[in-house]
């Protein structure tokens, strides 16, 4: 139990997660420095979603632990610091865009929920439909609202699970620009994805999972810009 490196945004130590007797994560060690964007890669079933959910405090591991800026993921300080964007958009269909954002602002205990909501509606170009119910939104609008929801409380750590799946080129570009903005603002980003090309536009680091084991973690190899599957071929067939 060495001390947490003071510079780590997210620190994962000797993490094991079992589903029954099946080890989905095996002894993961991971230090993520603040301000990096980590692309979490791995084949289907390698444990990416599991790892992200444990980091987000949605699940507990059997062994090992995770620190978000030095805190347990279930500690309220850690949860204030986390922004989560999973497969679903995480907003309510039967509330309006504005109501959704205010609700989450209030849940995060922000001082001025209404202002923050208005501000993010503007930033995601949804202010003209602020009062429409989310049910009536198109896929792109929903995705933007989901991003607003996740970014609302200025999280220092963003966790994204396959954020580009089933999005069209425009929606991907929008998400990338918002993520780039957050990164510039000092946030730490971790995203899992199979769409390597899209991920490589942002990623400063990559990590490769294979059947629950961490095979590679480090700065993005230059080879991957030209050839995104380079990593798989080099480390992945273990």
């Amino acid at each position, binding site marked *: 139990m060495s001390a947490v490196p003071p510079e780590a945004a997210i620190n994962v130590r000797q993490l094991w997660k079992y589903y*029954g*007797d099946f080890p989905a994560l095996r002894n993961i060690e991971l230090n993520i420095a603040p301000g990096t964007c980590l692309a979490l890669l791995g084949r289907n079933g390698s444990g990416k979603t599991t790892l992200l959910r444990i980091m987000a405090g949605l699940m507990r591991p059997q062994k090992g632990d995770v620190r978000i800026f030095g805190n347990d993921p279930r500690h309220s300080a850690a949860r204030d610091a986390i922004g989560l964007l999973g497969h679903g958009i995480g907003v309510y269909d039967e509330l309006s865009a504005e109501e959704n954002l205010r609700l989450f602002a209030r849940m995060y205990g922000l001082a001025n929920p209404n202002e923050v909501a208005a501000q993010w509606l503007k930033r995601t170009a949804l202010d003209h439909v602020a009062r429409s119910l989310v049910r009536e939104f198109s896929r792109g609008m929903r995705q933007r609202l989901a991003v607003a929801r996740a970014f609302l409380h200025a999280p220092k750590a963003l966790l994204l699970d396959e954020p580009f799946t089933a999005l069209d080129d425009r929606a991907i570009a929008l998400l990338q620009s918002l993520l780039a903005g957050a990164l510039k603002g000092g946030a730490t980003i971790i995203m899992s994805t199979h769409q390597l090309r899209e991920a490589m536009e942002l990623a400063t680091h990559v990590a490769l999972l294979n059947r629950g084991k961490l095979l590679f973690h480090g700065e993005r190899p230059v080879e991957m810009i030209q050839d995104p599957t380079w990593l798989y071929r080099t480390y992945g067939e273990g």
Partner: protein
Amino acid sequence: MREKILYGMGIVAGLWLLRNLYVILLGLPDEALQGAIYRILFFHLPSWFTCFTAYFLAGGASILYLWKKDLKYDTFAVSAVEVGTVFTMVGLVTGMIWARIIWGIWWTWDPRLTWALITYIVYASYLMLRRAVDDPTTRARHSAVLCIFAFASVMITYKAIDWWRTQHPGAVLSFRTGGGTMDPRMESIIYQNWAALMLLTAVLVAIRMRQETMSREIEGMRRFAHAI
């Protein structure tokens, strides 16, 4: 080695039950009011005590699981509940046979009887909940929570004769009545039967635990193989 101990314990339990049966049938006099049939009490009451104990232990194991997150507690809990429901069934059936002979009907909605039935349903739904969850870890967690809630029905069943006026007879054992209602010889046989049934329970639970652990390991290995 463990096998042998288990089988040995099983044989001891069987022999003990046989010996008790001999005493019950030939050693004890008929009861004044009910005649020969009262002898069913020697299995009725110990069955209930056995299943209550099993449920109690399962509840304890569930709390331990939630605390330690070790699947062996969950394995114990499910094994104990399974064996417990068997004895609940024995208690229900012996009770119903007794009721048929003494009261002339198989069932009546008396609080004690009703709560005994509810207890059975609650633990049966525990077993059903387990089948509905695929991931063993989630399954363990959720069924542990249910197991803790479920114990309430056991307590109500136990206390039912004190809380309501029931058709079902009240307490007979001296630790509840303060003594004097029952021939000590009979009471001792009741305790002996209970002890023998508990021994049997221990054997059954151990066997079930082995099966459960094994099938979980096999499932884990299979998933691992499929994940390639």
